[in-house]
């Protein structure tokens, strides 16, 4: 790959990652959310894998994509437990009011979705690229 593409991809990587987290957290009130944010983050890593190498992208991700899937699923499951114990209803979310914004276990649930989507897309994309690289 060309030097320009490779250098620019680092910049894009950071920008897209920031954008994806922004998407994730604004999702409750405006277009966005865990699913879209996860897709954007996966795009950032896929771009890095394409411009640099799969190894570099795997290193940037730190954990294995499949581990990310499992952790995300578990996190989403955990976010339902407080409601189960307080109201006897699984996934009834808790909310805390901080000034004008509301924070709740729904956000944790959305982070779980976010992680599952990143892990799911990247598990396949990395594999696919490695197959092509051979």
């Amino acid at each position, binding site marked *: 790959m060309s030097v320009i593409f490779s250098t620019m991809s680092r910049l894009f990587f950071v920008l897209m990652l920031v954008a994806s987290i922004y998407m994730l957290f604004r999702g*409750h009130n405006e*277009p966005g*959310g865990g699913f879209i944010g996860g897709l954007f983050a996966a795009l950032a890593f896929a771009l890095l894998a394409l411009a640099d190498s799969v190894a570099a992208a795997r290193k940037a991700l730190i954990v294995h994509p499949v581990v990310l899937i499992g952790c995300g699923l578990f996190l989403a499951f955990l976010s339902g437990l407080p409601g189960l114990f307080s109201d006897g209803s699984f*996934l009834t979310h808790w909310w805390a009011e901080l000034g004008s914004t509301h924070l*709740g276990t729904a956000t944790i649930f959305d982070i779980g*979705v976010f992680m599952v989507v990143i892990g799911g897309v990247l598990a396949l994309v990395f594999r696919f690229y*490695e*197959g*092509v690289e051979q």
Partner: protein
Amino acid sequence: MTFEWSILIALAGAVVARPVSSVLGRHTGWAISLIPLFIFVSIFLHVAQVAGGEVLFAQLSWVPSLGVELAFRLDGFSLLFALLITGIGTLVTIYAGAYFAEKPSGELGRFLSLIMLFMTAMLGTVLSDNLIVMFVFWELTSLASFLLIGFDGHKEAARKSALQSLIVTGGGGLVLFAGLVVIGMTLGTFSFTEVLARSDELVASPWAGMIAVLIMIGAFTKSAQFPFHFWLPNAMAAPTPASAYLHSATMVKLGVFLLARFDAVFAEMPAYGHTLVVVGSLTMIVSALQALRAEGFKAVLAQSTVASLGILVMLIGLTGEVAAVATVGFILAHALYKAALFFCAGTAIHATGEASLGKLGGLARFLPVTAVAAVLASLSMAGLPPFVGFISKEYLFEAQLSSDWNVVPVAIAVLVNAVMVGVAGVVSIRPFYFKPERVSKVHHGETAGLLIGPMLLAAGGILIGLVPAPAAQWLIGPAASALYGQPIDVSFSLWHGLTPMLFLSALVVFIGALIVIKWTQIHTALKSFDHAYGFLGDRFYHGALNGVLGAARISTRLLQNGDQHRYTTIVLLTVIAGLVIAFFAAPSGDFLAGEGDIRISVALVLALTVIGAIATILVRSLIASLVSVGIVGFGSAVIFMLNGAPDLALTQIAVETLIVILMTAVLLRLPSRTRHSRTVSERRRDGLIAGGFAAAMFVALASIGVTPVDLRLSEYFGETSYLEAYGRNVVNVILVDYRAIDTLGEIAVVAIATIAAWGLLRGAIKPLRTKE
């Protein structure tokens, strides 16, 4: 401590068995056996209470909206089963510790973990008062049995037998489930206690016959009754401690347990009892013949177990309080002697490495205590005094003679019991005392762990026979009373006087002795008719299984032949067919109801996507076609946006970008220009199908406006999303809050599908590497 906690304690045992085995090694069996022993003692403490006629209940809420409660019931019958499960379970864990002594300790840990899991399931099944909860535990016993039969998973026979038992008992479980659901629909309750109390109502309902049949099929598969009898002998592929526990003493009696429980419910339905007598008798005949033909040590015992289960099913079918006492007495006697005999068989096979009776002999020299235990247990099996087997057989004949049946079941019972005497003689005398030249040395001797189980069980058989009063008063009486529905005064004694039953017993022993003497001749004679017995085995099962596999193979070849053109054609034609049917089914003139003005912006974007689609077909360059497909995709995103669905548009854009990034990676690998791979006539046909699909879709979409859209749900979400879930983006609030459990299910599906595809990709990439 209340009794329902015993299930949880057994489960804890299943969890700790493996870690404990890595610390304690070969002593794990002794350590783990403390858990079932503890449960045994804690349940035993309830004996006096239950014998006093009390029924203990315990309840925890589980799914109240469906009427499913974790409800448990301890009466005389479930108490007897719970004591057998934990008592024999204690001995099995000790025995397994010694049996696996030479194996790696991880293997023992895995085995004990499964045994404890099975114990959990068994205790749950017999103690449950809620039918649905009972069914969950019932299926768990099938799963544990599957894992234990397939314990030596590297052997093909073990895998096949495990699958067979799972298909038969799991399939039967589904039939049983249907029966339980119909009960719930008819009576509006899943509580067994309530079903029992309202049995008149159930029997009077039009569904009664169907319920009885469904429950019987479920029970017959589990207890290996004809025509589902074939899986149990094949289950002998399991390690012997598992055979002794699951496939003789406990699990296979669950069908009997269920039939006995429902006998009280269906007391007013004579057909229920009659069916049981007929099926039980058929099973007895078939398995007695098979027992005479069997060669393996365990195989002979397994066939005699099937015969015993047949006897039990027949006894449940008989009416009267004597039949109830006979059923309970036989369950107890059989569990004691059959588990002991399996232990002895396991020790003999373990010591010699030989499983065939024809190759074993003179083992008493090497295994003297085991030989004594085998003889004691087989005397009880043969029904000789002063063993408990004698008393239970007397009751069996008394139950038959006092019933309103004619002489046929009695004759069958006499012959089958004679075969049991023969089997008892053959499995105890021949391998241990006859033909000492067959075995000259053994690999392993007896150890304390291998002896304690058979000795205790055999001693129990003689002790209850000699002093029957306590067992009759505390165990058999309460259990039979629970079955019969009214208190029974059980006078369980060795000597009944000169009765017709005593005469029948003597006849049984006489014929049995003849069978022992003539065993080899009978065996050879029956073996020569091998093909005539094909229908008694699992030929039907294999026929059905091969039929299903063949149908799957044909449909796969038709639908999944690896040709993308074929897949697309099938999908498109199916959609067209579905839509055409819908057009004709709809009231005439009720489609194509487009209204409103044409929006210029949408029309322009649509025109652009149409151009992109046409360009995709026409261009020959790979990059150009990639760009054209991209135009269609991004055009769709814009249309979503124009119609007020920004979330959908964002997702579409992300997916389109992902496709571009993915395709870029393969661009360099593929030829940049391609030639047509389809002939002209094929392309014409493709064009026709594509055109038809487009037309059908157009008409369908244009007709959507005919049905007024119900906006109540959208309005509800719109109004409440900020008030109740503090979010203004209704789409996201639905995903993470209103329907969060759906989303959880969906991401679980995404996770599982991804991991499956990930594994497949790894497999697909490897051969590529080796090629280059």
